[in-house]
């Protein structure tokens, strides 16, 4: 069975001066994602990829269509879907460890259990020695590592990531991509990853959904047949470059048509 199933999803926003007209941002979007799959949503800005992710998270409503996780309808946000936002959403008044514990106690874990699991998760992202630092004392990359640790800690069925590395510098970004592949390959999660960085999408994904804009639609789906585990060497494979060029061409063609 599909982990996530979306059929004919329609989302409109109010527009115009009085807000009486509606503009369609997602038009009959359909896709399905299997258990343990890593998929990316790419497209030009304004194609609705972040809106789609937000709808899957349950943070935004939609007008029509079906949206199911493990066969059950999505009616709102919930701990079965963990989200890593682009902005650093570590709570600044809590240390790294307490930030992870916050998510664990919120999802019903006992205090003792939370503190144990939190340390284990921080170890997973290589931050156990920074557990007692406040977010202001961590670099951007470290903050997103804690955010990932926090989202993974309560074992959501789906991990939703909205351009999580978009605010990081190029070097840190590559490190984070490698860390994420490593964690994913070990934990076998189901991930939906929104990005506008095609190279990032190719490196991380099993499948890439290219979206077109005005209104947002799924335009093409690419299977990424690159071997795993993915390492820095993966970037040098000829198939990598070829696929990256294909995806990029598809997005560019879309932008030219507008």
């Amino acid at each position, binding site marked *: 069975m599909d982990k996530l199933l979306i059929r004919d999803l329609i989302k409109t926003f109010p527009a115009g001066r009085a807000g009486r007209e509606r503009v369609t941002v997602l038009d009959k979007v359909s896709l399905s994602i299997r258990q343990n799959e890593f998929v990316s949503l790419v497209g030009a800005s304004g194609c609705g990829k972040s809106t789609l992710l937000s709808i899957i*998270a349950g943070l935004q409503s939609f007008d029509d269509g079906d949206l199911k996780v493990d066969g059950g309808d999505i009616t709102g946000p919930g701990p079965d879907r963990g*989200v890593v*936002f682009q902005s650093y959403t570590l709570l600044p008044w*809590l240390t790294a460890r307490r930030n992870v514990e916050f998510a664990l106690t919120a999802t019903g874990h006992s205090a003792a259990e939370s503190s144990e699991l939190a340390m284990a998760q921080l170890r997973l992202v290589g931050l156990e020695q920074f557990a007692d630092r*406040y977010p*202001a004392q961590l670099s951007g990359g470290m903050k997103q590592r804690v955010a990932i640790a926090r989202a993974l800690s309560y074992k959501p069925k789906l991990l939703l990531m909205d351009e999580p590395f978009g605010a990081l510098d190029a070097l840190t970004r590559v490190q984070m991509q490698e860390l994420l592949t490593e964690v994913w390959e070990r934990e076998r999660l189901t991930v939906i990853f929104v990005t506008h960085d095609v190279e990032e999408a190719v490196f991380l994904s099993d499948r890439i959904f290219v979206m077109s804009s005005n209104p947002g639609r799924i335009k093409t789906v690419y299977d990424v047949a690159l071997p795993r585990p993915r390492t820095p060497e993966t970037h040098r494979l000829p198939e990598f470059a070829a696929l990256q060029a294909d995806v990029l061409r598809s997005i560019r063609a879309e932008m030219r048509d507008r």
Partner: protein
Amino acid sequence: MAKPRKKSLFSMQADVSPGGYITISACAFILFFALWWGINASGFVRPIFLPSPAAILTRLATLAADGTLLADIASSSYRIGVGFALASVSALAVGVLIGNYRFWDAAIEPFLDFIRYMPVVAFVPLTILWTGTSDTQKFLVIWIGTFFQQALMFMDNIKRVPPDFIGLGRTLGLSDYRIVTKIILPSAAPQIWDTLRVSLGWAWTWVVLAELVAANSGLGYRITVAQRYFQTDTVIGYIVVLGLLGLISDQIMKFAGKRMFRYGEKH
């Protein structure tokens, strides 16, 4: 190569060392008192209009010795304490409502704006009509003077909480109540504290206003009585005391804020 010219103290963005800063501030105070003393010494203004700093200090010392000063400070502080606490708690509740719910925003915010522009002073006769000249009337004046401003400032503090923080709470399945107590209030706490600090300054003004009009104790009351007997030294002395009390309470809150919200520091 020519060395860049050293900026003068008066150029924009020129740096001043911490020691230099204190020296400059102290000079401003000294200059003020020297000017005052000079005016008195010249004999140009009669002491009944402007007593010398020394006369005022002597006067304050006498009032402190017989306990009047402390009793006045105590009754004014009590009124501020109660009035300000009532205003702050109710304003925070309203600020949370307006800041998080569009319905309450539409229902309350424009109305608050409307009342906010009414002069507090004009309410004083009404408060006497409603509650007499008891302490309740002082609480009411302080409440009217601070609540409406605070509610709007708290609303703004609450609205500045990053939406993704709230999104995080929702994806964790927290209830609205827990999102408010566990995420929104702690997140806005440093700004809420600043609002409290600023509005406490106004509360001092309102308590004195209430006491000037109708009271039988307190700093404002003493000022009215002194004015009746041409005790200008008491009037000015009490005004200076009010300034000092404001300064001290502000510094205490600033210090406490720094201690409480240390997590924002980079080291």
